């Protein structure tokens, strides 16, 4: 019987009656949890499920890649603050230290009624609970002319991997005094400050190596995360280099052409020597295949991160509709712990504590000039609601900004060891 914590939260799950309906529980077998996606949400969920259940759950992690290059800090790699190798992580700790069955394959579909996952290779996995944390898929057709073919010359760098290397290389080889065009995505998208941190890091690189070059930001949005802090930082560190244009100025983005490197807007045509184009986004395709999405993203029940469409599927991270929580690695990691606690409670009868969420996003504007924005959250009945929040202030001392940057290094080490150790 699920014991109810003194915070009275366990009652929400209807305890053991539900548990006994699970096929593997009825025969006393070890309940099976399959996690799809070994990123910020999925790796954390798999690790906490395995670590905290101490063998009472059979945990399988399905992750296509053998190495996870974090999107977080990929901008710092572009700027030259990190080596590429330092943002790559493997699954050794999850497999060996936490005894998770790590399957490096692509999950092709989910049969919710039979509780099975079909792998692209033809294999099949059965589950009592399924966790989906597949991150995003790019909506290539959200920009006329953009496609997987175009991303070679106009890299998005918005999913983990070699795209970030391409961007850095383009900046390094850009002609003297050339123009870099950055096209941020429309809302909602992963990492709201990400495009503007990228602009900062490219400016940092250009200031060192190609100081007469220019950066034009063609934004589909009127305003963006930490806008005042970023624009003040740009004026301070990179005066005259960065021109940000919102829809009021360019009239709307019409199309891109990776062969001519032209970007056509309603009012103007821009010729780029190098560009990063980030299209609109939606939940990773396995969430669509599992039938848990409504439109582009998967709605969830805040207290457990269970899908509103299927109580045996939990959706974490970017793919979920987490209302006021931004799509970030920190958020995904935080949601994973809430889901793991709820799943363990349901499958093994362990205590279920009050769900609590947090997020902080750091951004680096220039050497030792870090800023941060953060909040903590609680599970409302319909939405994840903000409890408290903070943001860096304009005019902070150089000391505070340096400490803020140093904190982000601590956080990077913390979250990656929380995911993979």
């Amino acid at each position, binding site marked *: 019987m699920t014991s109810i914590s003194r915070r009275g939260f366990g009652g929400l799950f209807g305890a053991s009656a539900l548990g006994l309906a699970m096929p593997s529980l009825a025969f006393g077998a070890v309940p099976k949890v399959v996690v799809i996606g070994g990123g910020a949400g999925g790796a954390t969920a798999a690790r906490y499920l395995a670590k905290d259940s101490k063998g009472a759950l059979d945990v399988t992690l399905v992750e296509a890649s053998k190495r996870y290059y974090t999107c977080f800090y990929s901008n710092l790699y572009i700027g030259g603050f990190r080596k590429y190798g330092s943002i790559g992580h493997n699954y050794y700790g999850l497999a060996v230290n936490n005894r998770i069955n790590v399957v490096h394959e692509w999950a092709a579909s989910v049969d919710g009624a039979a509780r099975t996952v079909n792998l692209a290779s033809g294999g099949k996995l059965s589950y009592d609970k399924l966790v989906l944390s597949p991150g995003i898929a790019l909506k290539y057709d959200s920009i006329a002319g953009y496609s997987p073919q175009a991303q070679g010359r106009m890299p998005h760098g918005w999913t983990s991997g070699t795209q970030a290397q391409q961007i850095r290389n383009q900046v390094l080889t850009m002609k003297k005094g050339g123009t870099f065009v950055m096209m941020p995505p429309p809302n909602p998208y992963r990492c709201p400050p990400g495009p503007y941190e990228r602009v900062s890091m490219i400016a940092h690189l250009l200031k060192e190596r190609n100081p007469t070059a220019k950066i034009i930001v063609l934004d589909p949005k009127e305003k963006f995360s930490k806008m005042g802090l970023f624009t003040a930082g740009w004026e301070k560190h990179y005066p005259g280099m960065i021109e940000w244009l919102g829809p009021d100025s360019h009239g709307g983005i019409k199309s891109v052409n990776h062969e001519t490197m032209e970007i056509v807007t309603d009012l103007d045509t821009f010729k780029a020597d190098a560009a990063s184009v980030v299209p609109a986004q939606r939940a990773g395709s396995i969430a669509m295949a599992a039938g848990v999405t409504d439109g582009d993203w998967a709605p969830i029940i805040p207290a457990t991160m269970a899908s509103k469409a299927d109580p045996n599927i939990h959706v974490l991270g970017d793919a979920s509709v987490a209302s006021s929580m931004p799509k970030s690695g920190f958020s995904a990691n*935080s949601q994973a*712990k809430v889901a793991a*606690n709820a799943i363990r409670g349901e499958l093994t009868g362990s205590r279920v*504590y009050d769900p609590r969420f947090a997020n902080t996003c750091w951004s680096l504007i220039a050497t030792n000039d870090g800023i941060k924005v953060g909040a903590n959250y609680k599970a409302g009945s319909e939405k994840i609601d903000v409890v*408290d929040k903070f943001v860096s202030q304009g005019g902070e001392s150089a000391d505070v900004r340096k400490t803020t940057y*140093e904190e982000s290094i*601590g*956080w990077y*080490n*913390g979250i990656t060891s929380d995911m993979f150790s």
Partner: protein
Amino acid sequence: MFGAMSAVMFGAISSAAAQTDLADQIAKADLGYGEYLAGECVTCHRKSGAGIPQINGIEAETFVIIMKAYRSKDLDNKVMQMMAGRLDDEQIISLAAYFSSLSN
């Protein structure tokens, strides 16, 4: 920061009775709850490394005093003020019991 902290600590332990009471509460704390709550902390705090101090093995009563000082904003760090801000005394004590039980 350490100046601020020792001032805070000096003021916090006002009487021997309060101290015994705290020790008692720490001894009775729910370690499992502390471990669950600690999930929020280890996204940033790890065993070693730069940028954010490691907090494993901090003596429990000191831990409580530090956390309360962040909560009351006597200690200055936006992230920690927010994290401590929504912890009640019982939660802080559970965390103190848990982190003090770990080796540093």
